[in-house]
């Protein structure tokens, strides 16, 4: 059986709670021996006592939440009902017992079927009604007998040995240990239909601290080598920090120290302002009009959004920032049409062309860089954009080694220019204002234009319902 050492941060919190729960010096749950019909039930606590403790000590206001947490603690194997295989917590007089630390999940048990076979075999040797195998256990035993047919004698002998050892123990102690052992198997071989809490996220379980596989049997049984489970991937060797690593760190830290940062008060104001501006657009806070399709089963909201006429609310959003206009295909188109009407659309078209360039497959990049140069930047270009001489120089150099970021510098300049010039004019325009006040239908009806090209895709597919128009 392999031993996995996962980071203890995974179990630390839950084990801390379970330890506190049992500590009677600091207000733990009342664990007592209960007198039952003919005998005594040692070391138990009621479900409701556990629920109460959780609520008091973990500041839980809702009983349901406490029961859910308690059930998880049980399902993980830290506490268990003494008369049930199903590990869940009930808020009533049902009796529970705490699991022995030996069996805690943090010991990374991954018991093999041989151990389980020994356990089930052992159970059949004990002549007590309450220890009778449940149906699923009997089925498991039958399956294991078939699988281990050849070494069943060995398993039987191990079970016998266990029973002998157990008989020597004190009666009360045996009751407790038997129940804890049963609870251990309820975690590792759960009742069919119950969650197996020992399942691990494969991304986490490969970080083994102990590369030499430590085989550990619950019953101390030594076996010939077991093949390594295919689930475990080899762990990464831990790299020691080198001089180069430290030099990089120092450069990085110096860069961070140079960085101009904002005060928390400013940052808080900014975050608050943003949420306040957008709260009316957040369907979780401001119910969507006419309705939220998921709640009403009516897609009217989506149909409206697909239509060519934007709602007032949508138009208002374009005024929040230029990014909002550029993000919304309808807004982008309105912006473009407005600029075309003023014969000043070259900046926006350049910006859109560069965005499109960055979306191209690598093999098409060089051609597109050339096309953009010809259209927007070459001397005598048809749609000459206005770049300052420094940016123009830099861009001309970049074009000699064409790539997706050739026009990055130019694009940044044009973006800033648009923001202060074109965008501001657009918001003041009657076209925009009319839409905003829903005075009349948009003057710039969307239509297919011969010089516009839809976003290319190398896969044949169903075209999205909105045409994304890009000039080039």
């Amino acid at each position: 059986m392999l031993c996995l050492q996962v980071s203890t941060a995974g179990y630390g919190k839950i084990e801390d709670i379970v330890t506190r729960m049992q500590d009677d010096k600091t207000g733990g749950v009342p664990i007592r021996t209960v007198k039952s019909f003919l005998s005594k039930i040692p070391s138990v606590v009621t479900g409701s006592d556990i629920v109460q403790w959780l609520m008091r000590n973990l500041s839980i206001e809702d009983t349901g939440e406490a029961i859910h947490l308690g059930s998880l603690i049980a399902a993980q194997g830290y506490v268990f009902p003494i008369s049930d295989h199903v590990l869940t917590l009930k808020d009533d007089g049902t009796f529970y017992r705490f699991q022995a630390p030996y069996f805690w999940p943090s010991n990374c048990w991954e018991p093999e079927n041989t151990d389980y076979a020994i356990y089930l075999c052992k159970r059949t040797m004990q002549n007590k009604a309450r220890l009778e195998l449940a149906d699923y256990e009997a089925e498991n035993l039958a399956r294991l007998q078939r699988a281990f047919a050849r070494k069943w004698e060995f398993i039987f002998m191990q079970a016998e040995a266990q029973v002998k050892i157990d008989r020597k123990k004190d009666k009360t102690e045996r009751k407790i240990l038997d129940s804890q052992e049963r609870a251990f198997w309820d975690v590792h071989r759960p009742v069919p239909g119950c969650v197996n809490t020992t399942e691990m996220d494969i991304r986490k379980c490969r970080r083994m601290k102990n590369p030499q596989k430590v085989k550990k049997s619950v019953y101390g049984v030594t076996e010939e080598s077991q093949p390594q489970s295919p689930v475990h991937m080899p762990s990464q060797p831990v790299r020691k920090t080198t001089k180069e690593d430290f030099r990089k760190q120092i450069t990085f830290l110096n860069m961070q120290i140079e960085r101009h940062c904002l005060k928390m008060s400013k940052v808080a104001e900014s975050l608050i302002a943003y949420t306040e501006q957008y709260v009316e657009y957040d369907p979780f806070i401001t119910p969507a009009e006419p309705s939220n399709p998921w709640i009403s089963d009516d897609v009217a909201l989506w149909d409206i959004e697909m239509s060519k006429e934007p709602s007032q609310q949508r138009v208002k959003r374009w005024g929040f920032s230029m990014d909002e206009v550029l993000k919304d295909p309808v807004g982008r188109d309105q912006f473009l049409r407005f600029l075309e009407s003023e014969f000043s659309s070259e900046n926006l078209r350049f910006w859109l062309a560069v965005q499109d360039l960055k979306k191209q497959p690598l093999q098409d990049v060089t051609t597109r860089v050339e096309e953009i140069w010809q259209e927007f930047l070459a001397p005598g270009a048809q749609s000459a954009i206005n770049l300052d001489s420094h940016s123009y120089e830099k861009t001309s150099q970049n074009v000699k080694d064409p790539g997706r970021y050739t026009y990055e510098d130019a694009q940044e300049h044009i973006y800033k220019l648009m923001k202060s010039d074109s965008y501001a004019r657009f918001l003041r325009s009657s076209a925009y204002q009319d839409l905003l006040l829903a005075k009349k239908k948009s003057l710039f009806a969307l239509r297919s234009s011969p010089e516009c090209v839809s976003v290319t895709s190398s896969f044949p597919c169903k075209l999205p319902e909105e045409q994304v128009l890009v000039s080039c």
Partner: protein
Amino acid sequence: MCDQTFLAIVFGPCDKCSKEKPLRPVYIKSEQLSYCSLCVEMMATEGLRENETLASLKSEAESLKGKLEEERAKLHDVELHQVAERVEALGQFVMKTRRTLKGHGNKVLCMDWCKDKRRIVSSSQDGKVIVWDSFTTNKEHAVTMPCTWVMACAYAPSGCAIACGGLDNKCSVYPLTFEKNENMAAKKKSVAMHTNYLSACSFTNSDMQILTASGDGTCALWDVESGQLLQSFHGHGADVLCLDLAPSETGNTFVSGGCDKKAMVWDMRSGQCIQSFETHDSDINSVRYYPSGDAFASGSDDATCRLYDLRADREVAIYSKESIIFGASSVDFSLSGRLLFAGYNDYTINVWDVLKGSRVSILFGHENRVSTLRVSPDGTAFCSGSWDHTLRIWA
């Protein structure tokens, strides 16, 4: 024999050039070394850099870290939740499961929304990747990957393709067609190759580029057509578990989170790490940008979610409770950024008030760990995927 006093000269391999020569003791930052005379000369003329030892570099880094913390602390004049006291409290929320998607035969590990606001792609431990119209709950496409544990999947911006990967260490792109006898696996394109499992993938704002994160500790940007590596991102000290692209029309950055407890912000163009945050106590399973792009949230195995602001360059909020002791696997913001939805390994989803730092709601329903959670593109709902084999749409 002459009884002269000789200078005791040690003869042996020089600590610098390894040649067998007479050696002289040399003291470099309180460490004693033995150099030959030539190396002593060279040392005298070389810059300070060459004389640095591992210890001196380490202490320099430590002192810079201290200085950085000092500088940042000067700007920490108030807490976010204090300023947010003036903000109106949120009302009671009624969030319910509106759709349950059943069809996966094993743990659901990842999901992503299509831009059309209703279709989703999901992947599971048994290798199945399914495309659903989650509004009608109909399955539209399905493909079985050749590996188990498909931990990452993504929908292309055009809605015409999906990407996925996991234990195969690759990210593959599948075009979606509506042909009658569709064999999705036939048109599969292998794009990314890592040396360990693929933990996350995302298309950039184009079908032509994919960003990936891997258990090999790196992130990478790939050209889909050619499969060529465009840029790689090195810096995490352990597996990278998640990534998210900045929501800007002009930005070229993304954030990643890993098992080294760090969240790192990267420049896609240069491959450099721009900012780094290390305040979690355990693995960061999920990172997601605040809608304005100025901040991002993280979910971790330390049972907390945190908010980091890029302009303040620090953690600005922690979302935690004494009663939440299981790791947060997946986080996402509502459209305005006021709410943070977080899925946990205790089978629940907690809804946090991002500004005030308090929990607004706890959602029960899943019967095993919540492994993935995303808000829909228009914010009308969010989808959660779980180890209980189902996906749920909540609104």
